């Protein structure tokens, strides 16, 4: 103990304290609220005063046909976002890496990074106008080619596609920068060796660049899996409407409607708890995979 107190590690551990405190206050303390899932919650009576109803909320959830639908939607939208959110930035980063003119490279990076800073409230409004079948720019352009207007945000066949592509468009700039940073970390001697061995650019990209950024890629995927079930609310809430509940309603939007709009606190918490359980399983899996394939360890 004495040794530890005197050691150089002490200040480092002390620096950890504020973040632990935040974690405790914002992540651990609210867990007490899980109780609401088993109660008929009444705000003034509080957590401990509200009547206990056991598994009743979960039973109702089981009957609610929406439950299955939102779980499927959440998983499918989320996994599509992860896959597209992985491929697009890597491809762009690789392409940018080959660009010689640094002016162009910088300008491009900045431009694609910009949408990251806009909130979905703003982008949602813009998208709704752009994609409107009656007077939206997109449909007018399609009209030039004789294509009938498509109601992108009201059609279940299109809605998920729009969600994924607009999300990728908004966020790929940020991830591209991460991958570009990873690219600069690759030892240039590897490229020299490869070219001496007769590898062309494509081969070099495949055999040197890809393995070089693989750990980062896996790390990014792992981290995004942890966030998957949180990721879509802002976007979907601002874009969806009754006709596309079928393809666009996710766990968070359902929780919002149940909890806030209908004041079914218990039911909403039950859905939230279900989501947290799924998240826990997903995170556990992804960390295992990350450990297995990228030798990534938390501690």
């Amino acid at each position, binding site marked *: 103990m004495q040794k530890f107190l005197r050691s150089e590690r002490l200040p480092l551990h002390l620096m950890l304290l504020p973040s632990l405190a935040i974690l405790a206050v914002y992540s651990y303390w609210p867990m007490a609220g899980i109780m609401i899932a088993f109660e008929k919650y*009444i*705000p*003034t*009576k509080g957590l401990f005063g509200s009547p206990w109803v056991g598994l009743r909320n979960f039973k109702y959830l089981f*009957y*609610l*046909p929406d439950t299955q639908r939102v779980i499927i939607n959440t998983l499918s939208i989320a996994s599509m976002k992860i896959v597209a959110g992985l491929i697009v930035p890597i491809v762009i980063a690789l392409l940018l890496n080959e660009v010689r003119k640094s002016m162009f490279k910088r300008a491009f990076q900045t431009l694609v990074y910009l949408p990251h800073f806009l909130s979905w409230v703003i982008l949602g409004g813009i998208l*709704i106008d752009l994609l*409107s*079948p*009656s007077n939206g720019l997109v449909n007018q352009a399609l009209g030039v080619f004789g294509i009938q207007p498509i*109601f992108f*945000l*009201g059609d*279940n066949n299109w809605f998920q596609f729009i969600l994924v592509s607009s999300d990728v468009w908004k966020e790929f700039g940020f991830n591209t920068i991460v991958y570009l940073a990873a690219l600069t970390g690759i030892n240039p001697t590897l490229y020299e060796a490869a070219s001496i061995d007769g590898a062309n650019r494509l081969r070099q990209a495949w055999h040197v660049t890809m393995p070089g950024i693989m750990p980062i890629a896996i790390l990014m995927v792992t981290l995004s899996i942890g966030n998957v079930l949180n990721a879509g609310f802002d976007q979907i809430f601002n874009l969806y*409407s*009754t*006709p596309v*509940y*079928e393809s666009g309603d996710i766990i968070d939007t359902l929780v919002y*409607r*149940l909890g*806030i*709009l*209908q*004041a*079914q*606190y218990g039911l909403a918490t039950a859905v939230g708890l279900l989501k947290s359980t799924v998240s826990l399983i997903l995170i556990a899996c992804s960390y295992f995979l990350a450990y297995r394939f990228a030798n990534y360890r938390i501690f």
Partner: protein
Amino acid sequence: MKMRLLKMGLSIVLVSALGFMTACSGNSSNQQQGESSAPTENKEAAPADPMAKYDPPIELTTVRSVSNIKFDEGETIDKNAVYDAYEKDLGIKIKNSWVSDKYGEKLKISIASNDIPDFFRVSASELQQLQEADMIADLTDIFDKYATQKTKEWFNLDGGRQLSTATFDNRLMAIPGTDNPYNSSSYLWIRKDWLEKLGLPKPQTMQDVIKIADEFVKQDPGGTGKTYAFALNSSYINNGAFDLQGFFNGYHAYPGIWVKDASGKLMYGTIMPEMKQALKQLQDMYKAGMFDPEFAVKDADKENELVVAGKIGIAYGAFWQSIWPLQTAAVQNGKLAQDWEAYPIVSIDDKPAKTATDIGVGSYFVVSKKAKHPEAVIKIINKWIEVQTNLTDANKVYMFGKSGVDKSALLWKINPTVFFAQDENLPAGRLLPKAIEAKDPSLLGTNPEINSRYKRVEKYLAGDLTMWNEWAMSKPGGSFAIMDQYDREKRYQVNEFYGTLTPAMLEMQGILEEKTRETFTKIIMNKVSVDEFDKFVEEWKKLGGEQMTNEANEWYATVKK
């Protein structure tokens, strides 16, 4: 009018008269007044002047929704002549804790976080929740002590029916936002200029309406290249503006209210088999490209853009649709651009169409248990009633702002509590058309509301087009005349359930209404076959509808006798 619109919208959870206890005990409102000295209350004797001014002034917090008030220069919902008048006359400073265009959602967050203002407007289900949660003050004694004679008369005009919808176990827990029950009836608004242009007769049957819609779409009388049949918005089942309630009623289906079935039991109108036929018709029209494909994502204001542009000629909705949203479409650039006229709703067969009506209370005013001066709220209410029953130069600031002149700016909506007479508008429909025809205001009687309507009509006839909305309602054959006609022809289908919300309603009605909207929207938009309706009915019953129906019938057995 958005305020009223809101009330109409909330009618899905409409509750009413006679709670379980009061139902049995009969004349409940008189009883409440009799028990003015409950043992729990230990206050001083009734004040000499219930309208005494507070000195020094007190502060009272509330919350407000954004509405379509046209404020005087330099005024806002937080600072205006009306709030100033309350401070001057009563010594009550009204402070808005927040103002939001998403009132309902924001209010629910306030309630959930137990952070409520001194007094505020709630829906029937919120009232029930607040009462259950013991967050609101018992107003029984305060109302008895501080309400003026006029106020008491105002609230008991219907025998205390609406008042008792806010009464739990003989205790008055809220002040009901009184209104005329007939206000929730539906009307068929059509562009008369288009009917004349195409040489079409006025609609007598549903078949006529469908034919008119068809002709409008085919012949495009507005010349815009694309005309749609009905003006619709996303909450089209029952909204008051651009909804389809009147259309459904034409098929003898009454979504959103409780009706008696063949066996004399209560059933919910939303799942009546007649709905299927109406939905089928709507689906066919949608398939034929007769509806705005984006209706399901639009609110009435957004949909109104199409109406203003001259792309729509038929709009089901309430009697006040001429005020909002149609006024902006009808009068453009200082000219009467579109001639909308109200018609009675029509039927698909030889049985006359009845219009669905609710009990007439859409919202309630509650006082927080923590409020320091709950009686101040009653004083504010007294003031409004005083202004309504006796409008003078001294108090007209409450109606028309600091100028004191009626500019149709809806400045009366600034008042934090607003009540409409329980018999409002039915006499208007009887008296106004006659007086207008005879040009004789003496036929109107003394009701200030009706007289001010007559003055507005006079202004319209003198060329003031901003008063067109009043003309469309009050003129012979206008929507008030039709309201009266419905009454004479016994064409009101009233909500048979007027108890306080049952537990299943409180818990599941919201979820079920949402399910309903989603399924009906999908059927209309031809995403699923109309046979989905049968599956929906089964699901509705399973998800709590059955339980709701049982509880409603249990209640019904207690009042039927």
